[in-house]
């Protein structure tokens, strides 16, 4: 597990900063992607990622370089959990609520929202084109927020099958969003 703490101090802080910079170069995209998945928001993901690097830089005893990557992802996951908690209003003050309400009303937001709304309508329309179990699994998971295990029970299939359906539905929507017509997308997925 942990080595002699004195050994950690043998590495000057400069070295640590270099390691963090390298982590940033190599894994920032992946980190933001993962955080966006957790937080359902790219903006929040970027903020949390940034905070994670800061936290990583501030460690007094950063530990073995080989563990740094795992540590970065753990810090980020912790911060993401914190942020999700914040959203639950557990500690939310009136100002925070207001900030959240108005954060999306910055000048060029209407346009982005319009695009997102179109996409949403399009994706939901695409779901209609899918075979029933596939469509239901995706709807229950993505819109109603049910877990894979819950859906497995509801649809009386294995969890593996639920994941399979979810994957198919997701790829189908991707293909359709990417410009394929229903026949093309179905043909490619052999639906």
């Amino acid at each position, binding site marked *: 597990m942990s080595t002699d703490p004195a050994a950690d101090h043998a590495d000057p802080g400069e070295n640590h900063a270099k390691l963090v910079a390298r982590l940033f170069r190599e894994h920032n995209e992946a980190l933001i*992607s993962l955080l966006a998945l957790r937080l359902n928001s790219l903006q929040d993901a970027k903020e949390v990622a940034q905070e994670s690097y800061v936290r990583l830089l501030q460690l007094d005893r950063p530990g073995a370089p080989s563990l740094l990557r795992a540590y970065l992802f753990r810090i980020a*996951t912790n911060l993401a959990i914190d942020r*999700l908690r914040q959203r639950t209003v557990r500690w939310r003050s009136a100002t925070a609520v207001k900030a959240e309400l108005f954060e999306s009303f910055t000048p060029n937001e209407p346009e982005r929202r319009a695009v997102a709304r179109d996409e949403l309508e399009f994706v939901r329309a695409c779901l209609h084109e899918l075979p029933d179990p596939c469509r239901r699994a995706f709807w229950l998971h993505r819109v*109603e927020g049910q877990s894979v295990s819950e859906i497995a029970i509801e649809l009386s299939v294995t969890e593996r099958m639920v994941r399979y359906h979810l*994957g198919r539905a997701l790829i189908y929507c991707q293909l359709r969003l990417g410009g394929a017509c229903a026949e093309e997308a179905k043909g490619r997925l052999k639906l």
Partner: protein
Amino acid sequence: MTDVHACEDPELERMEQAADWLIRLNEAPGDESLVSTWVQWCDEHPENLAAFRRAQAAWLAAAPRDKEVAVAGKPSEPVSTPERRVRGTTVSLRWATAAALAAVAIVGARLAMLHGADAGLQSYATPVAGSGSGVLPDGSKVELGARSRITTQYTAKVRGVAVDSGEAFFTVARDPARPFVVTAGHVQVIAVGTAFDVRRDDDRTVVAVTEGKVKITRTEPSQPSPENTESAFFVPAGQEAMISQVSPRVAVVPLAPPDEAYWRQGVFKYMGEPLSGVVSDLNRYSGRRIVVTDPKLRELPFTGTVFSGRIVDALHAFEDVFPLQVIERDAEIELAPQRVSSSANR
């Protein structure tokens, strides 16, 4: 990914892998080893992460967080789920905040079916990474964390709420004649007029009280009597009780301060992290070295929050949820197996 057609269509194969990763990562937010293998996969080919991000774009498009984005009025439900026809689909909910609420799905009837079509049962749920709030029929307010679900069952005598999964914060409307009873696993929380948070994991329930006070009882599955006065206790405002499913002991600790400052101190949050991993983190901050040698203890999964400024407190809190004892020495702190009934402990 062993689909027959995969070899004919390498791009599709990559999409399938990306979708599979996305679904699995989304299912297990706390799984570090999964993240680590996923990062490896991303490193394997420059196209992998790009494919993942494209999958993610479609994933987000299907259920955006922003309320304004949502299709106005009724959700364009493409599935005619049979449960929807049951009455009481709770149209009267007045949602209090804008964030993420459009995506909040109300699935009461599904549970009503499971429990034998009781019209008094309603359930509220939030989607993955969403949150929502609403007003319950008695005027009490509830805020739901991400991927959380509660079920209400109100009768003339009692306002019953079950936290099925996740986290819920309640601001209870005063009604002394009709107690507000929240059930989370084997834990029952009884409130009259108060505000508290119930967080439910697989192996434990955390009740954090911000106003008033609550009474907590444990209902063991083996003894179905709803009220066991011997195990009842009160938790006042500003305190948080952690009730483990496996240990009869309960830890009551002060709530973390509500300000932003504590983010800056080291705060570690874990979901199912082996104790050895937690300890190795804490050793970065602890003046005295923390040692756990017992292999069984090292494997115990820990879920919760540790503040780097209060490590010793945290270790003593471990005594309450794990079968271990803290032995403090000059140079080190040892977490040793509990001596009493060591054979009976897992």
